């Protein structure tokens, strides 16, 4: 199911982004070229497993890309927003602002 198809008829909000942690993750990624797992975890104030779960949902929706490098202690996981993700985030954010302006 594409991001557009997922868009909820109710309020026009995207169900994938209604979870506050996922929305915050998308907001952060929309203003960066790429962001590390640790930076996202600290900003969102979540555990490793929770962040992995949220980012997997965003990856499955085609909203983020994941890049892994290295192994063991020196390994790193970085996330970046996709074009579809940027579009979905902007639509969701604009809709949210419009609802609150009413």
């Amino acid at each position, binding site marked *: 199911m594409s991001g557009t198809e997922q868009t909820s008829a109710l309020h026009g909000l995207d169900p994938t982004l*209604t979870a*506050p942690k996922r*929305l*915050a*993750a*998308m*907001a*952060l990624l*929309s*203003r*960066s*070229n*790429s*962001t*590390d797992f*640790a*930076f996202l975890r600290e*900003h*969102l104030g979540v555990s490793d497993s929770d962040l992995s779960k949220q980012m997997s949902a965003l990856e499955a929706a085609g909203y983020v890309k994941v890049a892994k490098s290295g192994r063991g202690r020196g390994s*790193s996981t970085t996330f970046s927003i996709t074009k579809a993700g940027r579009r979905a985030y902007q639509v969701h*954010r604009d809709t*949210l*602002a419009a*609802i*609150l302006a009413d």
Partner: protein
Amino acid sequence: MENTEHTQLRESLRAAERAEAAPWIDYPPTPAWYPVSVALWAAALTMSFAIESTPVRLVVVFALVGLELGFIVWYRRYRGTMPAGKVPPELARPFYGFMAANLAIAGGALLIARTSTVWAAAIFVFVVVIPSLVWYERSYARAAARTRARLDAA
């Protein structure tokens, strides 16, 4: 019920606004060696224009550009993110001021190189870049603190 829903949506939007600013305003302290290193790098780049042999000059310029790219890769890892897109309004002044300062320094160096020597231009660049970067770092930190205060208080 509707009020509760609106409150939740409002909180989500506030959290999103704070998160949008995070790559710009949440960053580790800049290393103390940074201003002097950048000044040395800029002076070396200026000096490279004094090299008469074109192939040698190109090698030196590419080496310096490679060094800069290496620094950017390291800094992205150190910071954990690389900000992009719309700059928070508080940061606009230091951000664009820094761009203007860079252009002014490049223009000044060009003028000195033409009217005096490339050596003099390199010394000018080294001397001017350090206070320029120190001003930028302090000004940016103050603006980032104002942005954090605005978004955390909202």
